[in-house]
């Protein structure tokens, strides 16, 4: 095969799907063929049966909705705080010097380790779930945006100055629009991470959500349900990622033209 040689869209699709098929086939072979103990791993068919029962009888779609709400709520909260801070840090070096060391430190604090504290402070209600996602996302968003904004093309800034821009005008009409697509891409990336935080938050001190269903199924050895829950998370993540991507494309046609 020639390195870096592009592949046609049709072949790309076929190859992409065929790995899914192989993966499921292998899964079916080791489970239905009796190569692993059914207690530890359900086969694809009973996974689907369990999933159907969950949705129809156990009102699992309510759990799905509540998890989605938590992810987007916490993520929105983090974005509202982090985007302006990140822009400020990238644009004004004293602000960066003031906040960067702390934010760099804080980003390595594991969000999941905060759960016991957050439960003490905020109880086991919705606020605590939102805060876990907030803590997990906010520092990441701040830092990535600060770096992107800090590397704004200097020649564009200089051109704007020679056209009469004030310092304020540079930030609002050069730095912000120049980095808007990158900021949106950052948010898309971090939204993906928020999905892992929400499940952790729901595994501890929760009575609803996909994570709760998963931990609940574990005690009943319902591996079919667990796998179904994991797949649902993956599908929703994939869908929201597609939607986010399409939204970005619609919002910033100039960056792709």
């Amino acid at each position, binding site marked *: 095969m020639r390195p870096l040689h592009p592949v046609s869209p049709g072949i790309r699709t076929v190859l992409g799907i065929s790995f899914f098929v192989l993966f499921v086939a292998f899964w079916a072979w080791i489970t239905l063929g009796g190569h692993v103990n059914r207690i530890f791993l359900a086969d694809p068919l009973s996974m689907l049966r369990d999933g159907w029962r969950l949705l129809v009888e156990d009102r699992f779609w309510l759990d799905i909705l509540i998890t989605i709400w938590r992810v987007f709520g916490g993520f929105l909260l983090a974005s509202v705080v982090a985007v302006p801070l990140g822009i400020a840090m990238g644009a004004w070096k004293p602000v960066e010097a003031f906040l960067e060391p702390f934010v760099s430190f804080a980003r390595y604090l594991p969000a999941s380790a905060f759960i016991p504290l957050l439960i003490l402070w905020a109880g086991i209600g919705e606020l605590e779930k939102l805060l876990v996602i907030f803590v997990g996302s906010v520092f990441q968003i701040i830092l990535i945006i600060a770096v992107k904004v800090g590397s704004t093309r200097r*020649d*564009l800034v*200089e*051109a*704007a*100055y*020679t*056209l*009469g*821009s*004030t310092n304020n*005008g540079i930030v609002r*009409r*050069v730095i912000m*629009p*120049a980095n*808007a697509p990158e900021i949106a891409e950052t948010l898309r990336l971090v939204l993906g991470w928020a999905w892992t935080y929400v499940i952790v938050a729901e595994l501890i001190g929760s009575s609803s959500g996909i994570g709760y269903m998963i931990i609940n199924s574990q005690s009943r050895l319902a591996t079919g349900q667990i796998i179904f829950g994991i797949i649902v998370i993956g599908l929703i993540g994939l869908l929201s990622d597609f939607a986010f991507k399409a939204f970005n494309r619609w919002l*910033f*046609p*100039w*960056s792709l*033209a």
Partner: protein
Amino acid sequence: MSKLLIEGVSRTFAGVRGGEPVKALMPIDLAVAANDFITILGPSGCGKSTLLRIVAGLEAPSEGRVLLDGKAVTRPGPDRGMVFQSYTLFPWLTVAENIAFGLRERGLPEKERDEIVASYVDLVGLKGFENHWPKQLSGGMQQRTAIARALANDPEILLLDEPFGALDNQTRGLMQELLLGIWERRKKTVLFVTHDIEEAIFMASRVIVMTARPGRIKSDVAIDLPHPRHYTLKTSPEFSALKARLTEDIRVEAMRTVQAQPA
């Protein structure tokens, strides 16, 4: 009175990691008359771009000062329009919005902006491309937009830093004629930096030749070729004589630059 006065302007860059400071520009004196088209010609790295950036206010001189209409230059401003060698159109704005950028920053009402933009779109021959993104344009079209953007502010002086340096030869020739045509019709004080001898002669009413680093003015040559100038001028005997003379001047400096570099 001179439109632009450069008085004893020099620039020294601090040494890297405790090294010797680097002298980029020896003290330079230059007086530019209103509506003059001055080209600054010099070998690469001679500090000609630094000089232009100091006039623009994007860099501060180590010594000396720059006066525009008698006022000292301390920072960049819309009275000194600049066109860069790199493509500096704002990629998130269309051609028309790019040209309107300076007008918007100065708070002109939209109606007035639209009229001015339309006239400059026309001037640089970009009718029909008003709503294109910069990415959709060729290099020559991007630089034409950049020239229109700088001119739309009606600056006192137009500064151009090798604006056609990244273009292919044919496009470059057409761009020279376009810019010269605009200057012949609209009269503007222009400072144009280039390392291309033909370009320097063709465009200028006066060519300033700079020495190798640290740059100073080596010669100051008036170009009395008649206007309007046509591209066929480039093959005339007068043009060739000027070219021969400046080629000699520049060659000596280019040799010095090459020899100064460690092998």
